[in-house]
């Protein structure tokens, strides 16, 4: 009887699970397998694909724009991830502390994350405008020459980075807050009784116990930043002179504008491999920290 009931439960579970599996199979797995196949083809979307072996990859090797786009992507990650991790941690600490305007801080930093990408980009575009924008006017007011942020090859990428950090930091703050609230207050009490100062409490309790959150924030932000597309597409279109073109944008251009779907797939595959490395890294780090916690 018990066995029968168990089996019935299992059956129900599979039944409930089935729609998800079917959808996953149809809309994720099949396209994924197809896209892997397509990296060996020359395909202009409208015609029949032509097998060219590793042709797309040899093309990539000698394509200057591919390399510069890859570099711009990495450059964006380097500029974006550290401030997001550090700032979101510090702001979460501030919100978690005993200050009085917590509620305000919490919503003020989370609010941008709820905005759509176009609203965020258009707002910052206005702020950056050297003639009419707030930043330019403030610089003029203190006697500085306004920077032409988005049209300047040096400043365009940092300007996109600032926008991105402002936009996405709220999400990481929430992760850190959740982590901070899981640390039992008794740890701090015990440490205080033992005479540990604030500095020691921070470095021996807070930071180590948040290890899983650090890994989570770091890796998810790296993976998200590697896929940067919208901000660049809206704010600079990859310019000036192609200086902010990222790999995702180049994939989009090659695939949908210049009819090189196979080539675009091959480049997307390279990006996929890079992200896979980071995802694997996250898994490993999370597993080890989970094990440590069990001990």
């Amino acid at each position: 009887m018990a066995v029968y009931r168990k089996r019935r439960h299992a059956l129900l579970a599979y039944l409930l699970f089935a729609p998800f599996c079917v959808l996953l199979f149809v809309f994720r797995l099949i396209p994924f397998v197809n896209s892997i196949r397509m990296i060996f083809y020359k395909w202009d979307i409208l015609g029949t694909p032509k097998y060219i072996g590793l042709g797309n990859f040899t093309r990539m090797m000698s394509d200057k724009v591919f390399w510069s786009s890859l570099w711009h992507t990495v450059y964006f990650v380097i500029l974006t991830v550290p401030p997001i991790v550090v700032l979101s941690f510090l702001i979460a600490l501030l919100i978690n502390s005993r200050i009085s305007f917590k509620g305000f801080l919490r919503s003020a930093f989370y609010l941008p994350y709820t905005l759509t990408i176009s609203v965020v980009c258009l707002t910052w575009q206005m702020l950056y405008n050297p003639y009419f924008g707030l930043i330019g006017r403030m610089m003029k007011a203190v006697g500085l020459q306004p920077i032409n942020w988005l049209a300047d090859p040096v400043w365009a990428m940092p300007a996109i980075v600032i926008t991105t950090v402002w936009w996405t930091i709220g999400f990481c703050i929430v992760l850190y807050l959740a982590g901070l609230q899981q640390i039992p207050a008794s740890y701090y009490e015990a440490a205080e009784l033992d005479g540990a100062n604030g500095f020691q409490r921070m470095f021996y309790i807070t930071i180590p116990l948040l290890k899983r959150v650090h890994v989570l924030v770091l890796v998810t932000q790296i993976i998200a930043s590697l896929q940067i597309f919208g901000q660049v597409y809206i704010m600079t279109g990859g310019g000036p002179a192609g200086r902010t073109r990222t790999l995702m944008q180049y994939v989009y251009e090659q695939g949908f504008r210049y009819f090189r779907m196979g080539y675009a797939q091959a480049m997307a595959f390279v990006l996929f491999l890079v992200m896979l490395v980071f995802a694997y890294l996250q898994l490993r780090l999370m597993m080890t920290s989970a094990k440590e916690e069990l001990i």
Partner: protein
Amino acid sequence: MKRLLVAVLLLSFVLLASAKTTITVWTFFGGGEGFLVTELIKKFNAENPDIEVVEQIVEWGQLYNKLITAISAGDPPDVSVMHLAVLPDFASRGALTALDKYVSKEILQDYVPEIAAKAHYEGKLYAVPFDTHPLVLYYNKKLLRQAGLVGEKGEVLVPKTWDELLSYAKQAKEKLGLEVGISSEIGAMMGERLFIAYYTQLGGQIYDEKTKTLKLEFDKVKKTYEFISNLYTSGIMKTMSYDTAESLFQNNQSPFHLNGVWVMAVYPTLKDFEFGVTSIPALPGSKSYTWADSHTWVIPKKPKDDPAKIAAAVKFIEWFARNAAEWAKAGHLPVLKNVLNSEAFLGLPMRKDYAHVANLVVPAPSMKGWVEVRQKMWEIGEAVILGNMTPEAATKELIDFVKQVVED
């Protein structure tokens, strides 16, 4: 029971026979242009009870992507809007229906010849254009008067040559303490549009009809880049986005402005804004040739042709082209000569000042891969303007790139 069945069958036959032919049309127009298209489609539907045109608005930046995927999926709209410059990329891939046997012969004879030629690809007609939108020169009358740029009768001086434009712009900028003498967008407007205009005025031919390829003459390309570079090193122009360029001009902070005619949907409605519009200046010995693109209607290829739908679609797109005087309220120039010379069109504000530009247009070459070349031109133009590339290196880069695209 049997009788009922027969009755139902008969009724459905009657309904089917009187049913309208429904055609779906993809457009990407918004704002003033969008209202005009929707109004025109309404008018067409009212005049043609047997056809129902259903407009589906697709976002401007997404239309071509969506069209490619819809065609490859075998389910495109019956009619779509398409820029003339993009046409070869689609026509060369067999994505469009050739229209020669459907379109009435007399409509083509009335077209501005350059535009009619570009509506063909490899000898076949693939599009029915319904406007031209060239690059023109705008000037701010108030600022020019303040800068003392007036003639004997008190009329503002309108530059006819590039030298005149540059010296007027410089004088106005310095006298009035303005940021720029000419405002314009840095990417497409400089790298492609002004480039094509100036290069053509130098006597350069961008497309070789005989060899059917893009042709760029080294010296003339270099001279064009030198000219564009000088606009910026001399301080008359500054790097800026499209919106900034427009804002500066509309807010009386820039005496001259290079832009397409599409802004004519808005500028005449602005308060306290005295402006004029004219063809771009000319080089000595040249006419004021200028870049232009066109909006056209195309019929995307379907797995199976439906003659009734194609007939209805052709009826609609011809009707639209003939009624382009209404559409011209958006600023564009009509492509049919009889519409271009009609009082309905010339009676619109300032149209007389730039209608003649329709005969000076240089459309994009009929070349597969032009969309890619064009993007490169914007980038090289920017690099030259920013001082990252010399005119000589830029010329080499562009010519090499074109060769690569042609061979690919």
